[in-house]
């Protein structure tokens, strides 16, 4: 048996994820992913008014509160058979698009960049040369030797103060860091600029959401922000969207390509085989036909064959999860029955996670930006295909390199570019619709005695489904299957690995005591298992405690 490494917890900001890998000859040969917290939110929804569910579910996650709210109102819209008005569809899309811009920017710069960028090395950079580098690759509207020198000084003060916080967890000086000091300094400067910008981008939600965090304007039947449909509010939304999109195109995309050019080997590491996208952003009443990000499933990396998703083929398996035994169930029939006894962590053959194992047609599937971009690429999407092709050409890598950690990180940026442009078009469509005299934002409805509804969404982290079963006008059963559960689940009854368990196999490990390479692939999935699971032990005294067994 090879050497075992456990990284626990592994997420940079939210949630508790434990990853155990076995290494032999400097490479990962097997991996186990374990969610260390239990989520019981479904249990407290039983017996409640379905119209209230979204207020509860949006508190199940520490980053993406909006996405659970929209998934929930869509599921209840479906159960009540209510068709929302055009303005409501547009505003829901605009709020959701704003969530993507904000979330992906924050992920690239503040949750993932430090796996690739060495802050301490940036202190050694020559500001003059950094300015020249930045001018050649980036269209940032700040720069110059004086600017980079001041950023370097700020970083130095920060590092010397010993209060590194989010910077304290990385492995500075690790041999797997490949950027020269100047590229590190440029990336750190843009880390700070992105921080400045995202503070403004976050305001987008408040314009039509009433407040941020936890926007309040979504309701079953539409949205409540009719009074906000003024020229001033729409202009502000458009202004901040354009400001953010300018950064995405002039800085984020160039930074991604610049950093990727030093890590092309990661185009062959961290890949999976099957990809599932529910798609999102309905452009008309017709779903899934009109979804801007298309719905589809790709099996065994066959980009030539994108099948339509049949949600009836989704099941959750609990064979290796800490729940009472039962056969794989569709979410409508899903149960949340935690084991009565204390869970034992038995990755080799027993149960080892609080996450259930979602499967599509019995197969484990990756969800998220890479799945969405591959489905769109396979279907020849008019905006996304050219963006992918251009990135591949610029990096001189083949399309097969997309099935990787590099591909996953690039896909996140590529879809941000596409959504940011489309978001401006949707905003103008809203303006035109209001000008035509249509100000309706809500469709009244009768609550049926009973009914079932599903909300299939694709949110920044991936495919998110909410299922609600209504009886006597109350919630009888509520289940949701979240992106991190698809990506980070344990094995299932057929002993199939989850996407992250599969992706880690073959990863080179230069130093088992500092498994930076594992973090790269795990973080590329943008794990947020605060929403996949929930708190059992809120005490966590150390981050990145790495045990070598």
């Amino acid at each position, binding site marked *: 048996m090879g050497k075992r490494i456990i990284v626990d917890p592994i997420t940079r*900001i*939210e*949630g*508790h994820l434990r990853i155990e890998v076995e290494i032999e000859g400097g490479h990962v040969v097997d991996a186990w992913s374990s969610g260390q917290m239990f989520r*019981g*939110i479904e*249990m*407290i929804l039983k017996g409640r008014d379905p119209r209230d569910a979204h207020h*509860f579910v949006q*508190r*199940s*996650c*520490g*980053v993406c*509160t909006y996405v659970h709210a929209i998934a929930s109102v869509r599921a209840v819209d479906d159960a009540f058979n209510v068709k929302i008005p055009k303005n409501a569809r547009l505003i829901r899309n605009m709020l959701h698009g704003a969530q993507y811009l*904000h979330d992906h920017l*924050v992920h690239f710069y*503040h*949750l993932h960049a430090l796996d690739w960028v060495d802050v301490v090395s940036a202190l050694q950079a020559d500001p003059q040369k950094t300015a020249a580098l930045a001018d050649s690759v980036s269209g940032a509207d700040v720069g110059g030797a004086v600017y980079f020198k001041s950023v370097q000084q*700020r970083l130095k003060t*920060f590092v010397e103060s010993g*209060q*590194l*916080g*989010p910077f304290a967890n990385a492995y500075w000086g690790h041999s797997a860091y490949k950027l020269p000091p100047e590229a590190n300094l440029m990336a750190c400067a843009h*880390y*700070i600029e992105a*921080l*400045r910008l*995202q*503070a*403004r*981008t*976050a*305001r987008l939600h408040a314009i039509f959401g009433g*407040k*941020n*965090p*936890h926007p309040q304007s979504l309701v079953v039947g539409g949205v409540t922000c009719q009074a906000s449909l003024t020229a001033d509010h729409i202009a502000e939304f458009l202004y901040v969207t354009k400001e953010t999109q300018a950064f995405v195109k002039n800085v984020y995309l160039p930074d991604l390509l610049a950093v990727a050019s030093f890590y092309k080997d990661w185009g062959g590491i961290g890949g999976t085989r099957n990809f599932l996208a529910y798609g999102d952003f309905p452009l008309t009443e017709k779903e899934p036909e009109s979804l801007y990000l298309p719905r589809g499933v790709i099996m065994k990396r066959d980009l030539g064959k994108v099948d339509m998703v049949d949600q009836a083929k989704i099941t959750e398996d609990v064979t290796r999860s800490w729940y009472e035994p039962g056969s794989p169930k569709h979410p409508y029939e899903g149960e949340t029955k935690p084991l009565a006894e204390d869970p034992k962590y038995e990755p080799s053959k027993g149960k080892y996670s609080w996450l259930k194992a979602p499967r599509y047609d019995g197969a484990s599937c990756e969800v998220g930006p890479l799945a969405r971009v591959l489905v769109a690429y396979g279907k020849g999407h008019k905006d996304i295909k050219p963006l992918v092709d251009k990135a591949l050409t610029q990096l001189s890598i083949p399309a097969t390199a997309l099935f990787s950690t590099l591909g996953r990180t690039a896909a996140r940026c590529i879809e941000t570019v596409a959504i940011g442009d489309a978001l401006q078009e949707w905003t103008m469509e809203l303006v035109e619709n209001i000008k035509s005299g249509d100000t309706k934002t809500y469709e009244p409805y009768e609550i049926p005695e009973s009914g079932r509804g599903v909300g299939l969404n694709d949110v920044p982290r991936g495919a998110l489904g909410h299922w609600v079963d209504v009886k006597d006008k109350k919630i009888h059963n509520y289940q949701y299957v979240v992106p991190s559960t698809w990506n980070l689940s344990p094995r299932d009854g057929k002993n199939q690995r989850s996407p992250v368990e599969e992706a880690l196999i073959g990863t080179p490990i230069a130093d088992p005591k500092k498994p930076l390479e594992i973090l790269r692939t795990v973080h590329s999935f943008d794990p947020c298992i*605060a929403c996949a699971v929930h*708190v059992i032990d*809120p*005490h*966590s*005294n150390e981050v990145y405690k790495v045990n070598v067994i």
Partner: protein
Amino acid sequence: MAHIVIIGLGCTLFGDQGFGVHLVNELDHRFVFPDGVRLIDGGTIGVHLVGTLAGADHVIAVDILRRGGAPGAVYRLDEPQIIDRLKSPDHILQEAFIEALIHCRLLDRPPHVVLLGVEPDDDRTFGSHLTPSLADKLDKMIAMVLNELDGLGVEYERRA
């Protein structure tokens, strides 16, 4: 005038953990504050709070704190003590809040921060209500927040 953010942290689905959010809602029900003061339900948001915190001059945060006192004991932490909680945060959202504060320091003008806390009784059982020992402390904590505002020279009115 100064830009002040009063923010409640924690998840309202875990009983006492929602104390800060309940408190901010109470403040909103009882008082009218001038334009420069914003009341924020920080709720379950994490590092994305940077957007809310970065532009403020002063942040008054309210949360539960486990410091060994009896349930309902109240505390006032200044900035170094807040940062120090990162070693043993009371819940994951508090950890994310502190990381957001540290991110603010990378920007030009980080806010001045105090954290007002209360010792929880039960913050693990599912439920949307406070335990009696914490519900009893809402008035005390409101007085503490108002005391901070007084120190900053902020004038406010009680709602009729």
